[in-house]
């Protein structure tokens, strides 16, 4: 179904794929994984024809998908054989009703009304969305949006479905919805699936085969059990292994424990806080205390109110009710005392270079000190990148720059909203180790995440949010799996 021969793709910034050769037979589900920047997304763009037709890149080699040469056929022709689903579901939906969204592709092919209707019905029933055809895509949950994106791709009747990190922005519930849909497509309709993912548990369950990529090349190719059990391979690439992913709900992983160190005075204290948008309460009756030097994880499903709580704590959103006490008084200046790192670093980066970005806040507050500036750049490993333009940085580098800009004001509380999206474990581990050092020096860290392993490994305290309220507060319960994992790690560390 897919035949790739000596494929090399080069962007202006360098090689993305180098001499890749592979074959994928009909009906197979292949999981493609590897560290950030290894060329996974470029492979997806080639298979869907976006490279070379819509994205500028140098292309060498031969790629045939469902019998079509991607260089010779237009995207419109390829779209009838290859469906594409991208990381962010919202950017793939641009109609006012689910039905029109799914019908968009077939209409572009110039099919008759009856044929379009028949395809829409089929795609919606294959993705279990028949009841949502009149809904607005913008009102759907993340998992539902991704299902609509899959249905829209399916309506083109593709033989191959290429999904580029479809789980990246979803919580466990959304991931389960999408996984069930893909499973059904594979079993009932025999669609060949190329699944590009960092998150391996669900991918491994679906896949017949795993392709592991690094630096633009395929470095391992085989059955999931064989590839995923090679611990040294994963460790060397800085990737996670399957055992890193508990699949239990948060409540069962946290042991209630509200004891705190009595010798410390509270850094921030929230009492009876409710907040929301346009009169709608997103968080209610929040009672939370954070102490200096603590590393706390705030967890819960999408929509539980985690980001709203962080905005209120940072002084960026006024509470509707309740009081917030910072260091015994009122919070005066957001950024100086409390800083928040947003999910998308691009929202937070303004200036033209790394150097300017890190210096902007201190200069604006009249607190710029050259020695401190250099120290922050060094701590965030940005010295060599200081003159680089922000748009030319990788996602991980952008995030480090945004964090360095926050830290340049020496906040006493640093909150990070989902810093894990699109990051491989190697990058994340370095970020977390840096945060641990900060926490040891007295900065309080509040980490908002869906990531079990980060919570298990780094958080001293876990706060579980459900439906806008704090449902549980305590510490992470180490499962048998985690104990085994810790034991193996310790043994490896001791050689």
């Amino acid at each position, binding site marked *: 179904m897919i035949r790739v021969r000596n494929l090399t793709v080069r962007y202006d910034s360098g090689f993305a794929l180098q001499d890749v050769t592979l074959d994928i037979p009909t009906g197979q589900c292949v999981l493609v994984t590897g560290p950030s920047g290894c060329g996974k997304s470029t492979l997806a763009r080639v298979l*869907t024809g976006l490279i070379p037709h819509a994205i500028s890149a140098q292309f060498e080699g031969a790629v045939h998908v469902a019998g079509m040469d991607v260089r010779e056929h237009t995207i419109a022709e390829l*779209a009838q054989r290859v469906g594409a689903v991208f990381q962010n579901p919202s950017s793939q939906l641009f109609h006012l009703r689910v039905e029109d969204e799914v019908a968009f592709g077939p209409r572009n092919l110039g099919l008759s009304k009856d044929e379009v209707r028949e395809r829409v019905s089929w795609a919606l029933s*294959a993705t279990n969305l028949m009841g949502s055809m*009149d809904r607005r895509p913008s009102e759907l949950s993340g998992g539902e949006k991704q299902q609509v994106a899959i249905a*829209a791709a399916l309506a083109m009747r593709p033989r191959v479905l290429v999904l580029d990190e479809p789980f990246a922005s979803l919580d466990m519930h959304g991931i389960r919805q999408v996984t069930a849909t893909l499973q059904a497509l594979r079993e009932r309709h025999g669609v060949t699936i190329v699944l590009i993912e960092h998150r391996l548990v669900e991918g491994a369950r679906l896949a017949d085969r795993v392709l592991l990529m690094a630096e633009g090349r395929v470095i391992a190719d085989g059955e999931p059990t064989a590839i995923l059990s090679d611990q040294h391979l994963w460790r060397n690439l800085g990737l996670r292994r399957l055992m890193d992913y508990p699949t239990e709900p948060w409540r069962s992983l946290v042991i209630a424990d509200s004891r705190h160190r009595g010798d410390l005075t509270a850094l921030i204290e929230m009492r009876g806080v409710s907040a929301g948008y346009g009169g709608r309460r997103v968080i209610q009756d929040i009672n939370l205390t954070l102490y200096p030097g603590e590393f706390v994880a705030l967890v819960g499903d999408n929509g539980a109110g985690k980001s709203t709580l962080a905005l209120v704590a940072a002084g960026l959103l006024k509470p509707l009710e309740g009081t917030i006490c910072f260091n015994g008084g009122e919070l005066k200046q957001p950024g100086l005392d409390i800083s928040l790192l947003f999910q998308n670093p691009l929202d937070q980066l*303004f200036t033209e270079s790394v150097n300017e970005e890190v210096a902007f806040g201190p200069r*604006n*507050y009249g607190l710029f000190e050259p020695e401190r500036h250099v120290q922050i750049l060094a701590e965030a490993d940005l010295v060599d990148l200081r003159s680089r333009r922000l*748009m030319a940085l990788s996602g991980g580098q952008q995030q480090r720059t945004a964090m360095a800009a926050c830290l340049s004001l020496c906040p006493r509380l640093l909150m990070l909203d989902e810093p894990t999206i699109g990051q491989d474990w190697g990058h994340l581990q370095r970020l977390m180790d840096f945060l641990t050092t900060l926490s040891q020096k007295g900065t309080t860290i509040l980490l908002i995440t869906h990531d079990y392993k980060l919570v298990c490994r780094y958080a001293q305290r876990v706060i579980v949010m459900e439906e806008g309220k704090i449902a549980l507060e305590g510490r992470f319960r180490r499962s048998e799996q985690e104990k085994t994992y810790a034991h193996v790690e310790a043994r490896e560390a001791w050689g």
Partner: protein
Amino acid sequence: MSTEGRSAEPVRRLVGTMGRLVVFFWSISLLLIAPPNWIPLAVGTWLGVAVLLHPAALRVPFRRRWILLFGFLIVANIFWVGELDWNLWGLAVSSEGLLIGLQMVLRAVVVLVAVEGFSNSVDIAEVAGLLERFGLEGLGFSMGVAVNLLPFLRQSSLNAWRSLRMKGGLRRQRWRGLRLLLVNIIGNALCRADEVVLSAEARAFSPDRSRIIPLEIGAFDWLILTVGLSSLLALILVR
């Protein structure tokens, strides 16, 4: 690939988008064209149609703000329009003003109910599809992109502003801060638009070959069009 699965033929509505649009324009035209002494008959006919098509919209004129507005219209007319030839609880009022006020209220009620009924029963996508037929090709796609892009832009702009606030806001570098904020918002919007275009291209979209959103024609739509046009024509002739 197998094509099994439900391919249900949707139940055809009795009144489709075209029918509802005809009723909307008919309702408004009816009250504009009808001579004053025909207004009760016109309102009666319209009321029957409204009860059949969108009864829920008939509740709208009973909202407090509309009742206050209607009251103001009547009061203003009975005191300031025409001769004060009536005595109402000791107050001199104008019977002509009362009639004019009532006519104005009736017309306002008809317009209000027609707009509410039409907007509740016809999706914005169908309106876009309708306008596409009048030469605005690609409007449905553009409106969809805009509607789905707006919440993202709003959130992205809000995040950028909050982020700037955390860096001291517009205090020492006011103009530079403002310029950088705008560049950030525009840059993010362009990135998002680029993602949308790639996604649309992957589904065979081309601006030259964009397809018009199909309109749903109800079983009675042509009948409604014929009756509606004939009744308006008859009214014009009678006048």
